């Protein structure tokens, strides 16, 4: 069967069971947009290419399947670099297809030419420039394989216009042949045995669970391991929901804005069972003083993470779910041989920290609306399986701290790269992937202004996402750092609460816009928003600009020097 390269690309995407893609056409990708008309694939027309990339990422987070975005060459390709980098840092499987100028003119500075493969090399797991239409099915097959196996990540296919127009003979490769790519899934049995022995000897163990739990579908296995051993578990920013927050062994989020118990239990631990986490600097604080007494078990499918930041006493390369399942068996065998030490005193210590140092804020009667109050009311008035999306900044930290995640894959945010503007497009992508779920985004006013135009996409495509803007009229996290570390010298952080008028803006984009400026109206407005299911909703919550995120470990400081905040008086420091 003879096809054009463009037809082969669309057919290959169908073979990969792509149901939806996010994109925006342009000159170099025009040939591919033509066969798209006849395809079963739903295309969502974005308003900016960055939106397409983050939507693909939100889709992947919510569904566990790869998200697909397609844009043209040059400026479109450079606009999608941020989402690629974001997905690379957070190990999100997305496949980006970019148009390219004709292969015959590459290198001549042709109109809308950019060296896309060169530009995106450092921010993709792999990328391909296709020079022959006959290669298209093979490359698409390889791209999806690379994106979704091993440590997931973004990939990019650059397709020159003349290649898209060239004829090819259709085929579909039975298997992928990449001699230099063989992810190791199964952990080494001896290492697993060593890990089980360490677990059975530890008296102050903590499980440190990261985003890898979600990527490998290891949530249930994690729960079984925690319950079998009784080991308290912290869930990182990327790992929130790995173990339900309501579980007695879940200690919540560690790190720079983690709660006192999560941070301190890691500091005092004698063993960290690290599962799909990577000792990010926002978790460890000053590395040389991080968890000084802890032995480290480190399980990761990416061997380069083992020993990268912190020496691992027992490194295990493998898929985290497979390894946990083996580890459970090995721990049971250890239990049969010897009794583990009594960890009740350790648990008692942890309960004492939890009682003494909870997350705290005060919503005063008639006082300014506290952002934490809004988040808690939203949390309590949405279904258990609601997908929560966040941008980057104070609102993200409060959301991660205060939300009670009950299921994995219900938390979508930009962790590693910290991409402001992530929430709106990612929420759209998540809702497209899970139309059955309610999708709420908690966003900051600064973030919202970066990508709000994707609400036009949402309205046009009838994607009813809900956005709660915590509008404190500031780039709040930057303001917080200037207040604490730059002697309250505020430099370029004020945004104004009224400019733009978020309600009018929402309405102009085809959404319902609402405004709340006091605590009494919060719940009623959320309930109203929950009932709207035919278009997006935006609520402009006017929150207290003075509020800061606590606890906090200053950048570069030791996690021992955690600052609890003014709610704990002078001793909060």
């Amino acid at each position, binding site marked *: 069967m003879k096809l054009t390269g463009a037809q082969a690309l669309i057919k290959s995407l169908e073979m990969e069971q792509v149901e939806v893609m996010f994109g925006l056409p342009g000159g170099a990708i025009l040939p591919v947009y033509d066969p798209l008309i006849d395809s079963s694939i739903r295309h969502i027309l974005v308003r900016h290419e960055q939106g397409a990339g983050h939507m693909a990422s939100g889709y992947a987070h919510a569904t566990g399947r790869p998200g697909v975005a397609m844009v043209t060459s040059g400026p479109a390709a450079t606009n999608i670099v941020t989402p690629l980098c974001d997905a690379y840092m957070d190990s999100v499987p997305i496949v980006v297809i970019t148009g390219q100028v004709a292969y015959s003119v590459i290198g001549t500075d042709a109109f809308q030419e950019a060296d896309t*493969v*060169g530009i995106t*090399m*450092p921010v993709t*797991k*792999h990328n391909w*420039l296709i020079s022959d239409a006959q290669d298209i099915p093979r490359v698409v097959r390889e791209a999806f394989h*690379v994106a979704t196996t*091993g*440590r997931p990540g973004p990939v990019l296919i650059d397709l020159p216009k003349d290649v898209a127009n060239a004829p090819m003979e259709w085929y579909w490769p039975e298997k992928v042949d*990449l*001699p*230099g*790519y*063989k*992810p*190791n899934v199964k952990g080494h049995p001896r290492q697993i045995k060593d890990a089980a022995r360490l677990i059975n000897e530890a008296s102050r163990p903590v499980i440190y669970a990261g985003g890898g739990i979600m990527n490998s579908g290891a949530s249930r296995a994690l729960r079984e391991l925690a319950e079998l051993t009784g080991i308290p578990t912290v869930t990182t920013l990327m790992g929130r929901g790995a173990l339900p927050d309501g579980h007695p062994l879940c200690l919540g989020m560690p790190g720079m804005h983690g709660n006192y118990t999560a941070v301190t239990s890691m500091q005092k631990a004698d063993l960290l069972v690290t599962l799909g986490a990577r000792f990010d600097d926002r978790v460890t604080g000053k590395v040389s003083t991080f968890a000084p007494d802890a032995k480290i078990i480190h399980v*990761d*499918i*990416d*061997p*380069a993470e*083992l*020993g*990268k930041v912190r020496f691992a006493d027992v490194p295990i*390369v493998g898929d985290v779910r497979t390894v946990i399942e083996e580890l459970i068996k090995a721990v049971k065998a250890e239990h049969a041989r010897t009794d583990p030490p009594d960890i009740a005193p350790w648990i008692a210590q942890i309960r004492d920290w939890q009682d003494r140092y909870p997350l705290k804020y005060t919503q005063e009667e008639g006082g300014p609306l506290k952002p934490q109050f809004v988040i808690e009311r939203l949390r309590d008035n949405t279904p258990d399986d609601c997908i929560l999306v966040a941008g980057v900044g104070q609102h993200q930290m409060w959301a991660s701290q205060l939300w009670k995640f009950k299921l994995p894959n219900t938390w979508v945010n930009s962790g590693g790269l910290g991409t402001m503007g992530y929430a709106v497009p990612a929420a759209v992508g998540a809702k497209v992937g899970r139309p059955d779920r309610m999708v709420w985004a908690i966003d900051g006013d600064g973030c919202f202004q970066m990508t709000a135009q994707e609400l036009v996409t949402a309205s046009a495509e009838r994607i009813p996402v809900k956005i709660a803007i915590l509008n404190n009229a500031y780039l709040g996290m930057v303001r917080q750092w200037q207040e604490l570390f730059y002697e309250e010298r505020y430099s370029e952080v004020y945004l104004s609460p009224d400019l733009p008028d978020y309600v009018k803006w929402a309405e102009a984009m085809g959404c319902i816009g609402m405004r709340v400026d006091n605590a009494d109206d919060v719940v009623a407005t959320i309930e109203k928003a929950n009932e709207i299911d035919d278009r997006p909703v935006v609520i402009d919550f006017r929150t207290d600009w003075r509020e800061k995120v606590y606890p906090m470990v200053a950048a570069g400081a030791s996690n021992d020097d955690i600052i609890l905040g003014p709610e704990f008086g002078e001793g909060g420091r």
Partner: protein
Amino acid sequence: MTSRVLHHILTVTVENKPGVLSRVAGLFSRRAFNIVSLAVSPTDDDRFSRMTIVVDAESAPLEQVVKQLNKLIPVIKITEVPPAEGVERELMLVIVKAAAETRSQVTELTAIFEAKIVDVGYEAMTIMVVGEPEKLDAFSDLVKPFGIVELQRTGRIALPKLARESTRLRSVKTARG
């Protein structure tokens, strides 16, 4: 001189495809690993090329360099050749000032080093030296007083010494992710 830096030698088999050198070089720069020298050459199998990369051992732990390299999909195999356990060779071309009064001394040095004069001009000679990198260092030091006009070195290539009683080749290929 290259051979005096504390270094590791990696011979890396890569797919012979466009852009592979750029992927490897880009990885070194973005992970802040320093390359002392790099030589790329075809192998007996035209699907693959071989890179001999000399890594500054102080810039990064070798393990991390190898693991990151292994994550590149076109990288097929990585072998570390510990300096003491490899056969290393490098080629140098050097133009040395050699007017009538010093020419004989330069020629004599060339003979001692078993090097070769490959081009002669009125005021200078081009000399080719092949050998271990240390030998090239020594030669360039010795001809320096005469005046070096230009100097080029290929960067070293290396193969492990052949096993006699035990296997010396240490493969550091790890599982990849």
